[in-house]
């Protein structure tokens, strides 16, 4: 072996910096001078407007920890069940799995855990932040996802929050825009109820005409999240006819129960969410023929999945078609004249601008025409002397960083400011608003703004590791023909097994999933996860989710080592931790008794046999358990007994029965040196080390048992010097005591054998005591010379 004597200090690694990679043979399991650095993050998290720890919660689902997974989602998203259904999932197109086969079904997995926990319902998942009785009152106008997210955040921060909603139901566009077959009403109610449970007062049918009045009523701040509820038409002839309406009016009418009769033929203009939802709703209300017209090509459909679903239900989709004129008779709609289009040259954002084909006009018969073109905020109810700045697009203008309007204390955000956007973006705005209000009211930052997450995006190199092809789960099960008959949810919940399998498809881009499970598990509180963007973005020791890429954590993995000058070094490491060879373990619990880190546990196996187990996240690799193990079942990584014996045999070769003239005459001294005091001192000793001194590095003197001491003597060592930390300074705090017991035992046996006790000596020093070390070694060598050679050598 002899490798033990090789120098592998930080200095050597620095010297190797030119190389791509170095292998660190004896890194520590504990946080010492080596600090492991979390390397970047996964794309899915970066893509999410909320920065949801997608990889973390997917990983927890794969591990079957559904409750924890939901808790993790809830850290950033108060509406997991809702987003699990209607989120536009910007994460999925970014998923690296898509480069292998198909992206992980992230949205469906979120719905799975949310529903799973709703179903269990025995225990509500923990949400961080205790509910406090509010001091300062805050008003929120509008109960859509932006308003409610802000309400939830502010309530958790201890404010007394009131939400004013104009409509008879809370939820905004969730309740009056999205139809129940995509988002069941009980799901919306359950998640809104959870927010109400935080102490948020949600008042429906309360229209706020002038938000300034709220300030006068004693609310310290107001957040306007009134959404974009005014549907637009195109401005073509005939659109003012009866039964020609915009999609929002139509959907709101249906959901609030005041809808009109549509007739058998319905033409929908546009192919976005509102258009497809309107088309499918029309089918369910009994219309026989529903035509959707879209002015671009089929490839340019904004939501191809939803369009496909609508088509399977029986909606007819006409692409490259624009309406020219709404036809009427007796003031009522009779049809739509349309024109065919062709794709033109691409505009500056790359979209090909369609142009109409002359003479291609045709008519579609219709009893109702629904325009689903665009929506804008409905600002008609604002008082005339309002102080808001209104943009040309009829939206509220705010300061982009703070969401503040021109009136002090009034903030605005969401669709009312940006025009129609997705649910997940609205939630993100809600968080931003809460942070801004907090800052306004408390005069301090809620938390530092994160760095651009794009910088930390992890890359997965698929070439050097080809993942197995695994199909994405399919969740639609009911025959599509029957969907159109009811308003029930059409997407089915996957089974527990298939959800876990789907989560298992995650490639785990970036080594750390940030699921924080390790931190929760570590009862020694050794681990901490630092917030990205703040100082010291380091410290994460173990990869919490074990997969086939990281078998048992024994495989070397890449670590970033902080060098003495703070520089970052790359290295492969496998930690010095204990393992149990179960076949040899006889369950005597000696190891569990000696380990003061509580890293050893006695567990009863399925067959009733009791064996010892190592919690390698706690084990610090001192090796005391190896010493006390009677059978050799405890094994310390790198420092195995076989390796140390081999080293001894190599170093002492020829000293037993060999010729004692010249070279052999000097005393052979085996010195077991503690890694934390004597070994480094001796390794770079400033004094001359006697020629016959053989240094053997051990993690702790407590890892040297009496057998090894006797082995050194048996193999011909004249003396065995045990050099370790003083009892107050023992690196592992108890290793010293273990070493003393073992030396006592060896002394007893040596006494009976008739070997001089002086040949084995335990000396303790502090890591700085170079002079003392020199004296100890000189004295010991002199004594050994006086005693003469070990009787086994003659």
């Amino acid at each position: 072996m002899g490798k033990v004597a090789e120098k592998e200090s930080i200095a050597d690694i620095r010297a190797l910096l030119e190389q791509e990679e170095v292998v660190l043979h004896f890194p520590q399991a504990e946080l010492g001078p080596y600090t492991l650095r979390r390397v970047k993050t996964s794309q899915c998290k970066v893509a999410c407007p909320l920065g949801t720890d997608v990889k973390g919660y997917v990983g927890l689902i794969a591990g079957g920890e559904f409750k924890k997974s939901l808790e993790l989602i809830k850290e950033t998203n108060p509406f997991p069940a809702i987003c699990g259904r209607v989120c536009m999932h910007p994460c999925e197109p970014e998923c690296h799995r898509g480069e292998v086969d198909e992206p992980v079904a992230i949205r469906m997995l979120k719905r799975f855990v949310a529903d799973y926990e709703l179903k269990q319902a025995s225990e509500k998942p923990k949400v961080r932040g205790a509910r406090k009785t509010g001091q300062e009152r805050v008003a929120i106008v509008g109960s859509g996802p932006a308003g409610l997210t802000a309400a939830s955040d502010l309530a958790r921060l201890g404010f007394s929050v009131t939400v004013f909603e104009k409509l008879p139901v809370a939820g905004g566009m969730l309740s009056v825009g999205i139809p129940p077959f995509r988002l069941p009403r009980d799901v919306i109610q359950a998640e809104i109820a959870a927010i109400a449970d935080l102490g948020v007062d949600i008042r429906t049918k309360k229209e706020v005409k002038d938000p300034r009045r709220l300030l006068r009523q004693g609310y310290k701040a107001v957040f306007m999240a009134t959404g974009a509820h005014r549907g637009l038409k195109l401005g073509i002839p005939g659109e003012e006819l009866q039964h020609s309406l915009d999609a929002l009016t139509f959907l709101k009418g249906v959901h609030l129960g005041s809808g009109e009769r549509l007739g058998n033929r319905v033409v929908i203009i546009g192919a976005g969410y509102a258009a497809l939802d309107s088309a499918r709703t029309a089918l369910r209300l009994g219309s026989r023929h529903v035509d959707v017209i879209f002015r671009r090509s089929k490839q340019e459909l904004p939501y191809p999945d939803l369009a496909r679903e609508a088509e399977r239900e029986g909606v007819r989709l006409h692409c490259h078609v624009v309406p020219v004129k709404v036809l009427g008779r007796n003031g009522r709609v009779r049809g739509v004249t349309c024109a065919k289009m062709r794709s033109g040259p691409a505009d500056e954002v790359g979209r090909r601008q369609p142009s109409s084909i002359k003479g291609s006009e045709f008519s579609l018969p219709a009893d109702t025409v629904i325009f689903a073109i665009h929506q804008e905020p409905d600002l008609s109810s604002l008082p005339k002397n309002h102080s808001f700045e209104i943009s040309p697009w009829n939206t509220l203008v705010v300061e982009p960083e703070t969401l503040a309007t021109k009136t002090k204390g009034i903030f605005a955000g969401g669709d009312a400011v940006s025009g129609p956007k997705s649910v997940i973006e609205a939630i993100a705005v809600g968080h931003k608003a809460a942070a801004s209000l907090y800052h306004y009211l408390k005069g301090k930052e809620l938390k530092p703004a994160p760095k651009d997450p794009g910088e930390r995006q992890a890359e997965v190199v698929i070439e050097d590791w080809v993942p197995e092809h695994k199909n994405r789960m399919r969740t639609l099960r009911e025959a599509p023909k029957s969907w159109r008959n009811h308003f029930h949810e059409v997407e089915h919940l996957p089974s527990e097994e298939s959800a876990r399998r789907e989560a298992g498809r995650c490639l785990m881009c970036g080594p750390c999933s940030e699921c924080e499970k390790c931190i929760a598990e570590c009862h020694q509180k050794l681990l901490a996860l630092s917030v990205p963007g703040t100082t010291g973005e380091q410290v994460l020791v173990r990869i919490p989710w074990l997969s086939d890429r990281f078998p048992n954590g024994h495989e070397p993995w890449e670590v970033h080592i902080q060098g003495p000058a703070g520089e970052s070094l790359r290295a492969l490491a496998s930690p010095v931790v204990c393992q149990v060879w179960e076949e040899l373990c006889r369950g005597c619990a000696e190891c569990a008794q000696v380990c003061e880190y509580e890293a050893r546990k006695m567990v009863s196996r399925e067959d009733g046999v009791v064996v010892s187990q190592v919690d390698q996240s706690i084990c610090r690799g001192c090796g005391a358990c190896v010493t006390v193990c009677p059978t050799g079942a405890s094994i310390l990584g790198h420092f195995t007994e076989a390796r140390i014996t081999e080293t001894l045999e190599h170093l002492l070769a020829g000293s037993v029965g060999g010729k004692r003239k010249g070279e052999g005459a000097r005393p052979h001294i085996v010195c077991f040196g503690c890694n934390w005091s004597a070994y480094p001192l001796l390794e770079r000793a400033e004094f001359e080390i006697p020629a016959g001194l053989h240094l053997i590095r051990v993690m702790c003197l407590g890892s040297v048992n009496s057998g090894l001491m006797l082995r050194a003597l048996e193999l011909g060592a004249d003396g065995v010097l045990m050099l370790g930390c003083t009892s107050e300074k023992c690196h592992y705090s108890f290793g010293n005591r273990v070493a003393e017991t073992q030396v006592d035992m060896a002394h007893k046996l040596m006494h009976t054998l008739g070997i001089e006790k002086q040949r084995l000596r335990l000396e303790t020093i502090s890591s700085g005591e170079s002079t003392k070390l020199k004296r100890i070694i000189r004295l010991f060598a002199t004594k050994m010379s006086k005693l003469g050679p070990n009787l086994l050598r003659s």
Partner: protein
Amino acid sequence: MDEIAEAIKQTKAYYCLDCGKCTGNCPVSLFDKAYSPRVMVKSVILGEGEKLGKTRLLWSCLSCKMCEERCPSDVQYIEFQRRIRGVYRDLGQREFCSHGGAFQSLMRIMTAPKLKQNRLGWLDKDLSVSKRGEDLYFVGCLPYFDAFFEDLNVHTLNTARSTIRIMNGLGIKPMLLENERCCGHDMLWAGDEDNFKRLAEHNLKEIEKSRAKRVVFSCPEGYRTFKLDYPRYFGKLKFEVLHLSELMAGGSSQNPLSLGRLNKAVTYHDPCRLGRHMGLYDPPRELLKSIGDLELREMYHNKHTALCCGTSAWMNCDLASKQIQMMRLREAKQTGAQILVTACPKCQIHLTCAMKDTHLGGSLDIEIRDLATLVADSLPSSKRKK
């Protein structure tokens, strides 16, 4: 390899019928399904021994001889196993040592010619020994075990003291060797013949020097090694080899002991070396029965079917060992006996160690005594002392 062929021939392994009675009765196979004496024989005969030779299974056999009791072809399996171990040891394979290899080191250190041990410090003043005489007591490794297993509360030197007390009671003042070595039993069974021979030569030389006519053993391993193995390697011995129980129960002495009373139920655990190896089933039992009021109860497995204590030669102590020990302790508890008596220090150590398992919650706890100490405590002299 010639050595393997010779081992197969001499141990009659050729006669193996492949019936599997050995495996069916092997205590190791009972708990370690990977180990099978039948497969071991078969693969060595078929020239595939190398595969097994590199595994832990090479060292699994306890040499308890249970298999040989049942073998219809009289294959000498344990001798076969011992020789195969020797072959692979020469090829660099090593046994899996218990206790960090401390005992293996001790034994090898004892091969040093110039060794001057301090091994008689335990000799109390009330024990009578002599410098010259016909009888010699071979103490064995008891002083080392006593030191090493102090934490286990197994004080093996009490066996040595009791043996001398008994011999004194029989009117014998034994000689003791100042520089007695390990008998080499463990080295032999781990396939290390060289060190075995070195130790044996030292011992034979010392005994010859003492001019003893009879050598008495309390340890079954030493007894077997001297009686069977020494003559094989060194020819007929010039002295008689006796076990303590033979000395007493055989009535070879003119002074039969009169023992006191002990109103307790005891059960006797046959050490493999004393029982199946040497056939001494009855002398220890007769000795126990001669203690007044003592009730001897037999375990389910007794005499030639007795279970081994699970570990042999300080190697390959493992999960199966523990299981065997627990099974043995359970059998002892089932007899309702208050004391488990054995005649071997290692059985005493191993069974005591198995009781330590905290998960058992003391359910297998039973007092374990050595035969010699139980008898010595019943001597009239020791009673008076109390």
